[in-house]
């Protein structure tokens, strides 16, 4: 696995830690882990930092994951960065909405490290 930097966006600090741990358990070597509690914070973070991969919750206060996805192209350094949505919703329509808005994939909570690996492996391998 390549060494990558990630941004994890979730209003739950516990979930952010679990996502990070799952990425490491999936075999990813994380050289930098940035965290944000909602879409607004995530956009602000990305204005000053460049990452290789973004994992974002959908249901969040202030700015949810879908709006964050729509705003993401306004950040030059984030163009082309794969975004994996993480959701409890289990709703096909929400997943379709996320993919249409530019998400590269999704992970449904609850998840196992293997499921995380399955979702992000191909995205990480595709990174330059």
């Amino acid at each position: 696995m390549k060494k990558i930097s990630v941004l994890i966006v979730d209003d739950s600090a516990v979930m952010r830690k679990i996502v990070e741990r799952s990425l490491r358990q999936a075999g990813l070597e994380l050289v930098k882990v940035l965290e944000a509690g909602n879409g607004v914070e995530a956009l602000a973070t990305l204005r000053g930092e460049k990452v290789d991969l973004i994992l974002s919750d959908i249901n969040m206060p202030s700015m949810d994951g879908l709006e964050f996805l729509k705003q993401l192209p306004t950040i030059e350094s984030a163009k082309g960065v794969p975004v994996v949505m993480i959701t409890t919703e289990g709703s096909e329509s929400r997943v379709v909405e996320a993919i249409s808005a530019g998400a590269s994939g999704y992970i449904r909570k609850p998840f196992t490290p293997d499921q995380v690996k399955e979702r992000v492996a191909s995205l990480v391998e595709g990174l330059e």
Partner: protein
Amino acid sequence: MNQRSNSSTTPAIHPHRPWDKHMEDATAEVFEMMVGGPIELMADAGTVAKGDITGMIGLAGALCGVLSIRCTQEAAGKIAYRMLGGSDTSASSLRDALGEICNMVAGNLKTKVPGVADSCMLSVPTVVSGEDYELYTMVDGERFQIAMNFEGLPIWITLSIHN
């Protein structure tokens, strides 16, 4: 939501196999994947939910009501400890963990009821804690409740839904 059975504002608890089974399966899957500990039905827990911390989440749409998870601080601490791999069990992490468990159980439950996943929205979870409190919900419908055993401690899952 009143997790005691003596309130006129709270529907009586109905033993209802499909709902109970959905709640049991949804909870067991979340614990298996995210907490990493076995959890199973606790038949001898009684009918009154007890505990000094409760996570709640609202459901709106095709399935409308409230799902709550009530347990002791000790049980919530064990959940947080396992979820975080023992790295942080502060009071805020404990509340955060229970809220997320509630969120995931509700989300998982939606997928088990045909036709509901796409037409039911979840609220942001809320966590209440204290030494002595009762929870009331104004839901005019039915209430389903199960108790599950997690490391020897009861975890109460209650679903109050509009008919």
